[in-house]
């Protein structure tokens, strides 16, 4: 439902307003995150860099989109990722062999069709439940109280016998972890 609001197709090549850029990013780029993380993991030796690499790719894609909307999100995102990795490799003078080797294979992956939107909608609730179940117990309890039972921060603090600051801390942890589960799939 909410999707129809944003689904007015933006004209490729035109600069976008800030809300348009956001909507485009959420609609077209974030669903690629799981695939992108897999790509980065496969092609980058130091796994502790993944998070920062992902951010840098997002920043480049986002800034480019503000100036000019790419024709298709997927090739654009992965080309950006590839260029970033190549630049990193050059700068750090460390050459992970498989990174270079795999770059050509990437083009094939790009042509694969994206996930069907209807399937996404149908699986959404199951996916959300799955993400929820993977949260640490206390954190999950706070998120359940907020999202399912609709309690306020204050009410949650009283119900669980913890301070409001602790409620907030659990909520922020939960927000981060849920985003990782929902977009990135298996990320730590």
């Amino acid at each position: 439902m909410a999707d129809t609001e944003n689904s007015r197709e933006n004209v490729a090549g035109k600069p976008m307003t800030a809300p348009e850029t956001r909507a485009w990013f959420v609609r077209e780029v974030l669903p690629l995150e799981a695939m992108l993380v897999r790509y980065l993991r496969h092609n980058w030796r130091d796994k502790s860099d993944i998070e920062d690499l992902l951010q840098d790719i997002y920043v480049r894609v986002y800034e480019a989109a503000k100036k000019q909307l790419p024709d298709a999100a997927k090739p654009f995102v992965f080309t950006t990722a590839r260029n970033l990795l190549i630049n990193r490799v050059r700068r750090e003078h460390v050459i992970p062999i498989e990174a270079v080797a795999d770059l050509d294979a990437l083009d094939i992956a790009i042509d694969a069709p994206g996930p069907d939107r209807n399937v996404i909608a149908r699986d959404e609730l199951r996916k959300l439940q799955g993400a929820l179940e993977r949260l640490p117990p206390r954190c999950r309890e706070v998120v359940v109280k907020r999202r399912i039972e609709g309690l306020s921060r204050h009410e949650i603090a009283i119900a669980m016998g913890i301070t409001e600051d602790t409620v907030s801390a659990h909520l922020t942890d939960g927000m981060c972890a849920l985003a990782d589960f929902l977009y990135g799939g298996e990320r730590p």
Partner: protein
Amino acid sequence: MSEARETRPMSAKEIKTRAAQWLERQERSDWSEKDRAELDEWLAQSTAHEVAYVRLESAWARTERLVVLRPLLPEQIASPERGGRKRFSPVLIRVAAAFAFVAVLGATSYFMLQPRDRLYSTPVGGRETLSIADGTRIELNTNTVLRARMTTDQRIVWLDRGEAFFQVKHDATHPFIVMIGEHRVTDIGTQFSVRRGSKDVQVAVTQGRVTFDAPGVASQAALLKQGDVAIASAQSMSVTRKSTQALSEELGWRRGLIVFRHTTLADAAAELNRYNRVKLIVIDPVAAKRTIGATFRTSDVELFARVAEVALGLHVTDRGNEIEISH
């Protein structure tokens, strides 16, 4: 442009945590105009901030859907003749109209907008929070038009259409007044909601007290206390007392939710239709009288149709802009 970013002070993880803290703070009741300005400033500092925030915000918004995991209440199969509002018998006041009722509620009001007045509105499905300089917060529900005149000697708002929730910073010397056509609500240190329907005005007090003037119905203003819900039409006014739980469900829209309990399908459809362009139409009277108990997001028209189909065994036809429900 990209080189400046290389010397960033925060790691991606730290930025993500920061973005989550902003998002969490924003949901608190004391979120202010000043906080909003600080957030905007933080977002403007770097694209990394903005991207992290947009990503978390969209993921968190998706989790709103989890609300459907609230169990459907047993009354979804309750007997069809139980209506939505009947449960709360009006006890306090029922006054016949003493004078001819002049104002036609729900009619478009034409007005001169004075230079000091400010006009606020939300589209169908929209929701917005206004923070007034005096510390008062006003939350506008879907399809709402509100005018505000805030000067040194008066605080008046006109609810021309829709529904709003008020958290008033009390000031005995400058009472806060909400005008709804001819009706007037005056705060005495309060949180309350006002909804302007096509035929009536509803006022619900969640904290403190207000006075409610319904000229043409009662000669004296009614004093409403915490938990009171008053409904005034052109001919009558009734006041009922509701539990905190019932009230907070009634104000579920402040969190983007609608809660139905013993609600007829006709009433439930009408309520959802306030929030959506795709309209639910309950065709036959038999289906219209079935009752439902469930929680929906205000945008969940399709889910509602599915529940009608699967849980109530009704026939659902999707016609694009309209969804028909029949027996």
